[in-house]
């Protein structure tokens, strides 16, 4: 019967911990970037509606308009 050594256990636990923290980091980043993309879309629409012009709204402009989101 195959046995599982302490090194095997340590490897499995470390691997899991690394993957969990990596995906939590990715999740935070994915939500943040997607949210920024959505806000940028809303800003473009608002600029077009209020100024009647199409403007290339980059994120630094969005930050200037909204301040700290």
């Amino acid at each position, binding site marked *: 019967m*195959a046995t599982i050594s302490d090194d095997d256990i340590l490897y499995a*636990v470390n691997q899991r911990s690394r993957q969990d923290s990596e995906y939590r980091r*990715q999740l935070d980043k994915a939500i943040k970037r997607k*949210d920024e993309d959505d806000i940028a879309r809303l800003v473009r629409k608002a*600029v077009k509606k209020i*100024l009647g012009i199409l403007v290339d709204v980059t994120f630094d402009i969005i930050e*200037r308009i909204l301040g700290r989101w």
Partner: protein
Amino acid sequence: MSPPTHFSAEQLGRIKADVLHKYDKEAAKPLSVVIMGQTGAGKSSLLNVLFGADLPTGDIRPVTKAPEAIHLAGKSGHSLTFWDMPGIGESVGADVDYMAMYREKLIGCDVVIWALHSDNRSTTYEASCLRRLLDGTEGAALANKLTFVMTKVDILTPPSWIFALHRDGGVFAPGARLADKLAAKALHYEEVFVRPWAHALVSTTYNPGGFALGDDRLSYDDYTIRYRGYVSAEVCQNYQRRYPAEAEVFGRLRDNHRVLACSALFRFNLAQLMVAVVNKLGPGATARFRRLLGEAERLAEVPVDTMRGLGNFLIWDGARKLLDLSDPTLPPKL
């Protein structure tokens, strides 16, 4: 930092008010989630752990006859609309009728998860249901909404799950043999459920900033990177070899087309699943999603008390422990 000179203060105020109003309105809508899969695949359990819902689970449930909207309050106080779909496989005749209903609901929802029971011996029937569902003009849009999850991987053997203890909680980790088995099984499901739709698939992920590679399939903007086609293991490896500095981005594009091995009971791989779900959210859905998510840490952490009720595991806190958890003489925290 000064505002752009071509906006007056009054214009800036109006723009800001308009954006905030629309954002709040969007965020206030319920998140619409569809979880599909055969009866007993663990759809409700998955939804409960992902979104803090409280759907009844178990083997004996009333048979749902038509897609039914269930409105729930998430733990954060925000709302969730869960479409309880009739379980696939209850009857062939019923499934034919269900397909049109499924298609309609899937088009309109924010998140679609297809739960595949990890202990299925045959995938033929479910694959034929998927083919029927994706037939037609809206097939490509639907194919790109789906996230496939291999559920209940906690029941797979060899049962070398390790509980890595940390204070009052811990994390379940599969041993190496079991991890290999999960990967092989997930790849098999991927061949059956994902690869056939390669022609319709697109994979997207966030642009961390600075990614600027493009070719006939790969494109990008400030926020998003897109690959038109199926990101198989081979495709991913080829890109990673050519552009090692962007290996992480190609890994994320690949993750979107994996079948993810998950366990609601063991809270296994839930953060990975959520990343895949976020990547597929449509415009405006992120505000709704983030209000339901809560703390990402809870996606993996299982309290010791809960673990004790799940079975007998190899426990690791820096030293191996094999315990009979039903032994009343054990300290309450173990």
